[in-house]
Each structure stands twice: as C-alpha cells, then as structure tokens.
C-alpha cells in the first residue's frame, strides 16, 4: 500500500477548525473561509471572521496504482501537483492556480477547470470523496477513495463550486490519471469562423485533441495521447509548432487579451454550448474574446451592461460570470441570477445544511 512521506508542513488542524466552527455556531457569527487568498475575485465579498485553512495541510494518502490521492484542503495546489508529477500523474482538469499560495480547498470550492476540461472533465468529475466540517463543528465523510460509489446522496460533488457556503472542506479525494505519453502544441492561422468549422468536424472523430483555443487570429491546439496518434494527427492537421507554455498562461488567466480589448474593463467568463455562434453584441466583436474550450468558454474584458450580456448568453443556452481583479470582486452580482424555483431550492439547501448562515454567507448570491 502506497502512502507518501510527510513533509515538515503537514499538520492536521481539523480539531481546531471544528472548534472555531462550534464557537461561531453558538454565537451565530458568520465565517469567511480563506485558503491562499488567490480567488477572492471570483464571487461576492463575505462579511465575517476569517477562518484560515492554511494550517490544515498535507497529502494524507496517495496510491498511484489505485489512481487515488487524498489531500487536506489547506495544502498548496502546487505541492499536490508536484507529488503527482513525481509519479507521472496529474489532475486531468488542469485547475487554474492564480499564484503559488493557491490551495486545494480553494480550487475545489470555486470549481474552476482549465483548458483540458471539455475532453477530460471538470473538477467535480474527479472528486471521489470529501471530508467536511458541518455547521455543528462535526467532521463528516462523504463519498470515499474508490472510483464507483453510490451510497447516499452525492454531497461530495455538491461541495464543488459551492464556494464554502455549505460547510468547511477539510479533505478531498481525487481520481488522478497518468500524464499522456506524447504532447504536441500547434498554432494555425485561421479566422474564428474557420476555426469553429474545423473544430466541429474534428469533434466527431476520435482525434487526440486536449485543448483548443482561438485567440488573435489563430487556433491554438494541443494534441495528447500515444506517440503514434499524436504524430499522425500532427502530420494531418499541419500548423506551426507552439510553445506548451501557452496553456499554462491560459490556464492561469495570465494571457494578454487581444489588443483591441479594453484592459481596464471587468473580466467576464461566458459559458456557452460549444457550437454557439457569435453573440452579435453591439460594440463587442467576438474577435476581442479568448475562445477557450473549443468555443464553450469565452473570456472577455468589457464594460458591457451585465443584463445585455447575460440575456444574450441565456438565449444561447449558457450563462455569464463577472470576475473582479485580484484585489476584489468586480460586480455586485458576479454570478448569473437563478430562476425563482431554482433559487428557492438553493435557499432550502443552504438553510438545511447551514441553518445559522455561518459559512461564507452571500459569497455566491446575496440571498444566501
């Protein structure tokens, strides 16, 4: 059975975290959960006493043959990725890092996935289990360390993207995968429309594409798989070689936006069905956007009116999120408002799992 050597930083702080939560619960005082504090720009500001997860740190279990790793929420994401890379494995969803202090807990709570997402799956797709401290200060375990598990409700995956509003994540178990044997990145100069058409054709074939982004007049592609298929696809598709560092910059939102974009304007993330054509927004040409996920995720810097943008996205079957700067949130309502029935059940769920409203109140929506 494989576990790993502990590092000097490893520490189980779950009992002191639970005690803080019991206190907050008794006093009815809200808590603002913070890890590496690199994702504050994603969500609404929270008024509450700071509860840091940074002391609760370390990989508690890793068995590369089982493809399973368990890690405490305050562990730096970079540390986890390094542990996996040593064994030739990875988190397939390529989470954005936003800085070296980014933690695993923050990654799961915000639920953001990187360039490989449409082909490999999202954060929640790779979560096998969680430990969560509930509103009574009791650490509970849901899911587990096995690939298939349907005992009880899937509260583990529910925690992904819930931004800490339903409980404090203390440990997460992930399915991990081997790093592909061969990788090649390339750049093809094409118009946005041509890129869309090619991606639609390629998408119906079993090609080893693992990232596809249109930006600044060119389609950027990453091929991953066995050496034979990557070489064959590379020969067939053509294009110029591209430095693989492009994907790291894209993943961490560190790429420069197209020159005609407005750099000081708020950053928007549009999530759309991947065959969605241009949205035909006035004064906002699609060429000013970064089209990631083969068109299913578009990044935009714009002063466009939120309702205009959201309405266009809704009509296309998607939604729009406003991200602030690293310094703070960029909008009073960063996430697309929920329809009334859905909002009702969100409030019910919040009230049941956090009856005193102590966990990150208002982080997702003002109503809960």
């Amino acid at each position, binding site marked *: 059975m494989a576990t790993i050597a502990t590092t000097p930083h490893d520490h189980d702080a779950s009992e002191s975290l639970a005690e803080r939560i019991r206190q907050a619960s008794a006093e009815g005082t809200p808590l603002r959960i913070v890890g590496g504090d690199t994702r504050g720009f994603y969500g609404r500001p929270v008024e509450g006493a700071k509860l840091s997860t940074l002391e609760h740190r370390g990989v508690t279990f890793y068995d590369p043959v089982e493809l399973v790793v368990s890690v405490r929420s305050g562990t730096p994401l970079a540390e986890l990725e390094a542990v996996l890379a040593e064994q030739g494995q990875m988190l397939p969803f390529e989470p954005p890092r936003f800085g070296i202090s980014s933690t695993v807990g923050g990654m799961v709570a915000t639920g953001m996935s990187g360039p490989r997402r449409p082909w490999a799956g999202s954060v929640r797709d790779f979560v096998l289990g969680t430990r969560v401290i509930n509103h009574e200060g*009791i650490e509970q375990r849901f899911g587990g360390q096995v690939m298939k598990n349907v005992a009880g409700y899937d509260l583990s995956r529910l925690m992904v993207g819930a931004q800490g509003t339903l409980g404090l994540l203390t440990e997460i178990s992930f399915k991990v995968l081997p790093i592909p044997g061969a990788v090649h990145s390339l750049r093809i100069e094409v118009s946005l429309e041509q890129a869309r058409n090619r991606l639609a054709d390629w998408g119906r074939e079993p090609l080893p594409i693992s990232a596809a982004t249109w930006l600044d007049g060119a389609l950027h592609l990453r091929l991953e798989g066995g050496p034979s298929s990557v070489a064959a696809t590379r020969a067939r598709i053509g294009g110029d070689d591209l430095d693989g560092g492009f994907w790291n910059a894209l993943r961490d939102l560190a790429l420069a936006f197209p020159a005609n974009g407005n750099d000081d304007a708020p950053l928007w993330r549009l999530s759309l069905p991947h065959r969605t054509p241009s949205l035909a927004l006035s004064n906002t040409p699609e060429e000013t956007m970064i089209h990631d996920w083969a068109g299913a995720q578009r990044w935009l810097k714009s002063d466009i009116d939120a309702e205009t943008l959201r309405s266009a996205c809704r009509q296309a079957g998607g939604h729009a999120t406003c991200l602030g700067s690293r310094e703070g949130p960029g909008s009073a309502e960063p996430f697309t408002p929920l329809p009334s029935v859905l909002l009702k059940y969100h409030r019910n769920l919040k009230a049941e799992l956090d009856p005193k409203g102590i966990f990150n109140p208002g982080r997702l929506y003002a109503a809960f």
Partner: protein
Amino acid sequence: MNILYDERLDGMKPQLDKAAIRDSLVQAIPGLTLLHREEDLHPFECDGLSVYRTLPMLVALPETLAQVEQLLKTCHRLGVPVVTRGAGTGLSGGAMPLEHGVLLVLSRFSRILEIDPEARIARVEPGVRNLAISEAASPHGLYYAPDPSSQIACSIGGNVAENAGGVHCLKYGLTVHNVIKVEVLTIEGEHMTLGSDALDAPGFDLLALFNGSEGMLGVVTEITVKLLPKPETAKVLMASFDDVEKAGNAVGAIIAAGIIPGGLEMMDNLAIRAAEDFIGAGYPVEAAAILLCELDGVEADVDDDCATVRRVLEAAGATGIQQARDDAERALFWAGRKNAFPAVGRMSPDYYCMDGTIPRRELARVLKGISDLSEQYGLRVANVFHAGDGNMHPLILFDANTPGELDEAEALGGKILELCVEVGGTITGEHGVGREKINQMCAQFRPDELATFRAAKAAFDPKELLNPGKNIPTPARCSEFRTIKSAEAAVPTHSQGRPE
C-alpha cells in the same frame, strides 16, 4: 435484520383511503391511465430485485408532462407517497412499490427528442432505453458511453436515479459524468432545469446531487446526455491465471504502466465455467481467473498499448494470453462477461447479486474473506469484478424454495458488504442502496452523517413523499443495526466497521 418496511423502525405509514385518492387523481388528471385492480397491479410489484414484492396502491402511467405535474401536485396536497419507476430493471429495490403509495411509471416517455451530431448531445425522455441512445447516435459515428449490463432493457431515467455504471467506467465515467442537463418536476409540481447545454451552470451543482439520488429529490422528466465519437478501434486481450491474486496484481500492473483500458474485467473460476457453459465464449474453464482487457482509441496507439499490456500480463504470471482476432471474437469475449449473471443463474435456482466497491489493492483479502464466508454459510459464490474500478459483483447461489436459504443468502450478502466497508470501500458501486442495502448504510455512515443526508432530502421534499424508505435509513433502524452488531462483536472475526 430484515430489510422490509417495519413501522417500528421506519416510521408509521400514512393512513390513506385508496378510493378517495383514486377519485381525486382521476378528477384532477384527464386521460390518465390509473391502474387499481389487483390483477393489473401485479406486473409492477417488484423491480429487478424480484425476491421482494409489494403490491402498489395505485399505478399511474402518464403520457404527458402536464399529467405528471398534476399527479405530483395532487399527491403532495393529499400526502400520498410517490415511487417513480422506469423499466424496473434496478437491482437494489429502488423502485420497489409501496402498498400505501402511487407508483409513477414513466415508461411511456420513450421518445428520443433530439440527436445533435454537431453539438454531440442527445436529448431524450426518461423512458428511453440506454442502448437505444447509442443506436440512434450510431449513424453519426457517436455513442453514449455508460453501458450497464442491463442496457438492452434499462431506461435512462433509472440510470440517472442510480448513477448507473457499466464495464467502461474507469475511462469513460459513470452516468453523472455523461449527463449534462436534466429537466425536473419537484414533488410540488414545479419545473426546474439542472445543468445546461454549456459545460457548467450557475449555482450549486444540483445536477450532481440528483444523479444517484434514487428518485428521492424530484422526478426527472428529460435528460440531455453527451455523445462521444466511437473509438477508431477496440481490441481485447484475454489473460488466464492459475491464481486469483496474480490476476488482481496484473490489474494494478497495467495501470502502473500508465495505461487506462476502456474495459478491464475479471471473473473467477465459477463465473468462468458458468459463462462458458452458457455462451461458449472460448473461456479457459480450468483457469482460476481470467482478465478481459479492452484497449480502445486510435489504431496506432491501441497497437502500442496491446504490446505493452501483453508484456505486463506475461510478467504478472499469466498462463495464457489471447487477443481477439476480429470484432466477432471480441464481441464473443464480452458476451460471456455481459451474460455472466444469467449464466450463473442457470447453475442455481436463485442467485443474489452484490455490488460493493473496494480499493483494488485489497482484492486478495476480500476474495479470501468471501471464500471463508461462503464456506461458513454453505452457499457458493461466483465472482465477477469490474477490476479497473474496484467494483465487485459477488453472486450468491441459493434456492429460495429451501426454507431459510434466502435469509442465509441475505445475511451472507450483508457480511460481504460490511467487509467492503471494512477495507475502505463502499456497499454499492452502481446498483444503488434502494431498500436492499438500507441496513448496511448504517455500517458505512455515522448517525450524524445520515442526518446530513436527511437534511439534504428535506430541502427538496420535507414531507418525505418521494420514494420514502429508500436509500437513507432512519435513526431507529440504525440504532437497532448497531445493537445487533455490538452483540456480534463479542464473537471474534466479525466486522471492525469502517476505517476512520
């Protein structure tokens, strides 16, 4: 400890006037097919776990969403429990009816609403059969990945309710990984959409929560699934071993070599002989275990991987390795595996299929434990194992006509599940808890964790009208379960409970 509804442990059943409820439903819902005569109710008295049967109070077979909505509103108003059912192939009693409830059968919602080959999605009604989706997508070179062994018959609504798996999960995921959107009616008859046609949706991931929720949070009325391009090629290697443990180690060695097979299945000798006798798949009947390893993808990569896997299997001590020569032989190799349950069924008047998942490294210990238990109870057990993802299907052979033997089979099954929990696994990988594993939930979860499950349920169905009694045991039931366990604990060799 019996799994059947017991008012002492599971709560009082509502006192309902069948005739009055029938009148209310008939009045509220024009054109609704509502069965009430005993002879009409019998075909619905059980699901795939047919040893347990209950006659439902009423069976509703709606044909329109408006009828479903009205039915839910009416039942909610009158306090009538509702059990939703699709094809009824589930193996955990998840669609077992209630004598004091309405069985809501969605089998008439069987239309494929849309196949969009460009978006690579299919939008379907809940009564559509799993395999029918892949058949409809096939002309476009696409398919729907999850393939439970019952895929010819099982419907997609039930797949969502149970988060169904299959033999390709390690690489392609479970139902939850392949459904992108569902339309839901709540118990109050409200409509909501979970997920979206995009790759995510704002708010909580309720789509994940509803997958595998066993019809206890809402009624799923439409499902959008993603379709995948068919792999260019798929090849199967069959390896035989003279020792089960060697086969188990070979599985780990394949994955350690950096290969994720499309399918990786293991069968023990009893299962091999049963399948060979039934299908004639060409299995080596003398082997202690066989592994079926399917590699799929682009031709060149698959050939490379086949060579690697062959080397790994040889090093792991395989006594024979055979690669299917063509698609026909590949299909035959799989036919043996996919028909393993009915094949074992031919060896015995009855069989009982278990569904625990374990960390693969514990395989040898668990198989030894099962073999000991099998001897102790005097019942044969055949083992079929989704080796890639650790999901075991021990099949307990018994004869329900021999007095007491069903009880013994159940008790043995319960022990096997508790063993799975003890080694860090789970009581159910893909069949669901339903009514069948209601007691073992008390072994896998602590009372406070079960209370959190009940809280999640209360957010959607505070009156507990949707499929009551399934999935999450009551505190009273678990308290009794623990009393029995602590009495047993005085006897050595009994379960130590879950590791913390």
